[in-house]
């Protein structure tokens, strides 16, 4: 394991499986009367969120607290960043406070990488721009592995994963493509041509524009959120048309193979990329994904902070 977790593409198959296997053991803690382990006592984890987030920040906070770490939530609103403080000065402040790990979400791709160069502690990327969101990909892989009844040590070989929607603005898609591929799954992207990044040819996955053709060949369908807040141009004629062509409705749900599952990283736009009936169907793993997120983040924090001082 590296000292930081910046990108899912940095993870070897061995690293990824170690994280998933560790998460599998740590998931049991959630079922205990005392949901706490003493492992990270005396360590400080800072949540540094420059963008809004509910589930990721709460998930990291719950994970750190279950491992007995001290958690400092640094919300940018109301902080000195609002007064114009630079990222580097913020980093030096955190350093002086003795942060052992900084969980960072930032609107700019590459911000965690820069931060890692300034800090002695570990940096965990909780989403940077349209670049990566590695813990989301890990929790998705964990959810897939569990749903398909595979246990510790097993990878995702032979499973076909289709990722649908706004790939252009999605850090979740990028992290998932690299991680799921490393774990042996076949990954296919389905999106309107306008919502695919320019360099898509270099990604280790297939690309198509027709959701109806892809659905019957998928074990997993992962729907991406349409990121209105990042859209500065008209990428499709209307929301209604997008929903007709690329939304997962009950008709398409019936075309899925028998054991197939439906995933969504949240937050959902019900009725746009996913119909409400689909989101609430037994095939949907959306609520599980949130619970699994805590276990996977506990595993990441333990593996980065639980051993020998990282700097050595």
């Amino acid at each position, binding site marked *: *394991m590296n000292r930081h977790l910046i990108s899912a593409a940095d993870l070897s198959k061995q690293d990824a499986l*170690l994280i998933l*296997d*560790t998460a599998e*053991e*740590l998931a*049991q803690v959630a079922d*205990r*009367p*005392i949901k*706490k*382990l*003493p*492992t990270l006592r005396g360590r400080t984890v800072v949540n540094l969120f420059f963008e809004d987030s509910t589930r990721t920040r709460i998930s990291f906070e719950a994970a750190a607290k279950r491992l007995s770490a001290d958690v400092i939530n640094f919300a940018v609103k109301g902080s000195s960043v609002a007064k114009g403080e630079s990222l580097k000065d913020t980093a030096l402040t955190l350093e002086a406070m003795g942060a052992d790990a900084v969980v960072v979400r930032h609107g700019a791709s590459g911000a965690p990488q820069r931060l890692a160069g300034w800090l002695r502690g570990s940096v965990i990327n909780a989403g940077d721009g349209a670049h990566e969101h590695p813990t989301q990909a890990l929790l998705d892989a964990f959810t897939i592995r569990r749903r398909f009844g595979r246990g510790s040590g097993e990878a995702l070989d032979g499973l076909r994963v289709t990722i649908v929607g706004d790939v252009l603005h999605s850090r979740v898609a990028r992290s998932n493509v690299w991680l799921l591929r490393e774990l042996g799954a076949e990954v296919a992207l389905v999106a309107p041509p306008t919502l695919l990044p320019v360099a898509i040819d270099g990604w280790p996955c297939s690309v198509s524009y027709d959701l109806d053709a892809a659905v019957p060949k998928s074990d997993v369908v992962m729907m991406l959120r349409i990121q209105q807040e990042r859209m500065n141009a008209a990428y499709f004629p209307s929301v209604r048309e997008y929903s007709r062509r690329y939304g997962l409705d009950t008709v398409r749900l019936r075309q899925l193979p028998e054991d197939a599952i439906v995933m969504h990283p949240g937050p959902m736009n019900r009725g746009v990329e996913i119909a409400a009936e689909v989101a609430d169907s037994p095939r949907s793993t959306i609520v599980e994904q949130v619970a699994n997120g805590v276990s996977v983040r506990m595993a990441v924090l*333990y*593996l*980065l*902070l*639980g*051993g*020998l*001082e990282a700097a050595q």
Partner: protein
Amino acid sequence: MAHAAHPAGGQPGTTGDSVTNPTPTGGPPDRGPQAHPKTVLEAAEINRALTRIAHEIIERTRGAEQVVLLGIPTRGVPLAGRLADRISQVEGRAVPHGSLDITMYRDDLRLRPARRLGPTQVPAEGIDGQTVVLVDDVLYSGRTARAALDALNDLGRPLAVQLAVLVDRGHRELPIRADYVGKNLPTSQQEVVRVLLTETDGEDAVLLEPVGAAAQPRRGGVTGRRR
């Protein structure tokens, strides 16, 4: 920190490189005469020791009715299973057994890179109000047993906790003792006790060898490289 003022925390250099075996004349290459492991328990002796421990557990707990056996990974787990089998043969009913991983409760986590976790499987009966017998292969410093007590504390409140080990090699660093011992084995701290079990290593044996030999990749659970 518990280990701050303790000799065990400060001597990590026993990985074998620093140990110089006197070079023998005519000995096999790469392995001096000291490097030869000595078999201290053979399969039949391990069998007998476990059978005796099983009977002692039954006697001490008056029929082992409220007993849960929890093995500490890796080699405590198959030992707990074997003890449970023997007790149920005598008493004619199933005895709950499982495993208890103590990695997250260790006091030396910060001395090494993060370790892989072992399995924790507590039987459905739980441990509240039961007599928990912790099972491990070797009792040495007592730190594993201490960590196991902490781990149990987070799982429930047993009526009593007892400790069963296949080998007690001495050199305790904490006020901990075993209730059931397969064999008391006087050792030097320069030696390594290696436990082999059929379930994990393909054969049953307990070996004693000098620390230097542990540098060679070998099968079996090692107790004694920590200091």
